């Protein structure tokens, strides 16, 4: 399968890439290409120009400063999974990165490209929403910060302007009394999330003092679960209290006002019934009552 014809330009800097985007309304950015190239080969995308940002060195790399992990948009899933700094500062990031696709896909796919593509089945979108991550979006007049929860607006649609690119993804480190986990039902061929649930709990002994919960895969964009979070906060986490809290997820899915995705592999009803199970698994992992 061949993509439709397109022009190709290699951008040497972020400024050049942003300028090329501004000058060419039908252009697309090319990073690792693991979302875009398949779409182009199926001719679901036919950009007239590809702007290759793969060679821009300052879009790559991981630094931890204070309580923030800054990950360049071009950093691959494999680099994040293997990073000792990331494993130390926020183990969930490394674990989620290592569960994306397969090894060769992880060697090539990038965190920024994954978010900009905004596939509903993205693991990153759900995990980074629960973690309260932000992106730095670079445009012609400078950069702005967007929460990942606000970045993903709908299936394959983001809050990025046509002339903006994601430069950095910033993720809070986990405190010593915080646990974060992600559980997903993966599609058996692609390993994309059919349903995924991500949780961050702040603990005081056995008691949860605060929780952040997000689900994805079954919805066009990740959905936060405030009812579940409120039910967890102030509660001693046990099998029973976790089951009670996750039973409220259906309220949050209704309140979010989004369609539940159904397809030939998994119907909408099935996905909606699996979602609280994945959140429950993530919570049980977080408190050590279940293991991977």
């Amino acid at each position, binding site marked *: *399968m*061949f*993509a*439709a*014809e*397109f*022009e*190709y330009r*290699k951008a040497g800097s972020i400024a050049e890439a942003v300028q090329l985007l501004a000058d060419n309304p039908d252009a697309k950015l*090319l990073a690792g*290409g*693991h979302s875009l*190239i*398949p779409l*182009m*080969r199926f001719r679901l995308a036919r950009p007239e120009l*590809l702007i*290759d940002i*793969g060679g821009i060195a300052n879009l790559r790399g991981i630094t931890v400063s204070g309580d923030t992990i800054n990950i360049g948009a071009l950093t691959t899933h*494999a680099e994040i999974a293997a990073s000792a700094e990331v494993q130390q500062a926020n183990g969930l990031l490394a674990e989620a990165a290592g569960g994306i*696709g*397969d*090894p*060769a*896909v992880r*060697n*090539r796919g990038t965190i920024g490209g994954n978010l900009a593509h905004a596939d509903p089945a993205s693991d990153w979108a759900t995990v980074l929403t629960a973690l309260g991550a932000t992106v730095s979006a670079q445009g012609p007049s400078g950069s702005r910060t967007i929460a990942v929860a606000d970045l993903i607006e709908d299936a394959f649609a983001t809050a990025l302007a046509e002339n903006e690119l994601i430069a950095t993804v910033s993720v809070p480190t986990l405190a010593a009394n915080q646990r974060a986990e992600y559980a997903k039902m993966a599609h058996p*061929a*692609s*390993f994309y999330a059919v349903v995924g649930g991500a949780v961050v709990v702040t603990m005081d002994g056995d008691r949860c003092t605060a929780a952040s919960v997000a689900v994805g895969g079954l919805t066009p964009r990740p959905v936060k679960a405030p009812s579940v979070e409120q039910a967890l906060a102030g509660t001693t986490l046990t099998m029973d209290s976790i089951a009670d809290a996750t039973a409220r997820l259906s309220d949050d899915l209704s309140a979010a006002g989004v369609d539940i995705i159904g397809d030939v592999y998994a119907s909408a009803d099935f996905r909606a019934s699996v979602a609280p199970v994945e959140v429950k698994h993530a919570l049980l992992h977080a408190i050590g009552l279940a293991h991977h």
Partner: protein
Amino acid sequence: MPNKVPITINVNGRSHSAEVEPRTLLVHFLRETLNLTGTKIGCDTSQCGACVVKLNGVTVKSCTAFAVQADGAEVVTIEGLAQNGNLTAVQEAFWNNHGLQCGYCTAGMIISVTEIIERNPNPSPEEVRAGLEGNMCRCTGYNNIVKAALAAAAAGQGG
């Protein structure tokens, strides 16, 4: 007609320059321009792993990379593993353990197993299987492929 783009790629230690259409995939460039047909096209949708090659030291699915993205890079294909007619430990182990049946997945399998052992010189059977998640063998010859990988690792350990 879009402009062709000049590229130079080092493949198996030799530099190759060409002008390619931007939409040329790396796997097409390897097979059709360089006649390196050891790398195969299977599913053509980055799931089966028949097209796996090394790009700048790591495995990639060459059906999901444009040749222009490999400009200035180093690529290693199955043809580049043996040196002076001497098979690598992984190739020897596939031979000795009947690690191939029809052979279609073998180039990708051997490149992927090579990376698994580079990253983890003493993998468990489970780690080999996890490392081969993205490589399909439609003959379902997985047991002997895993055996071959473990034998190659043992050979590398002096075993």
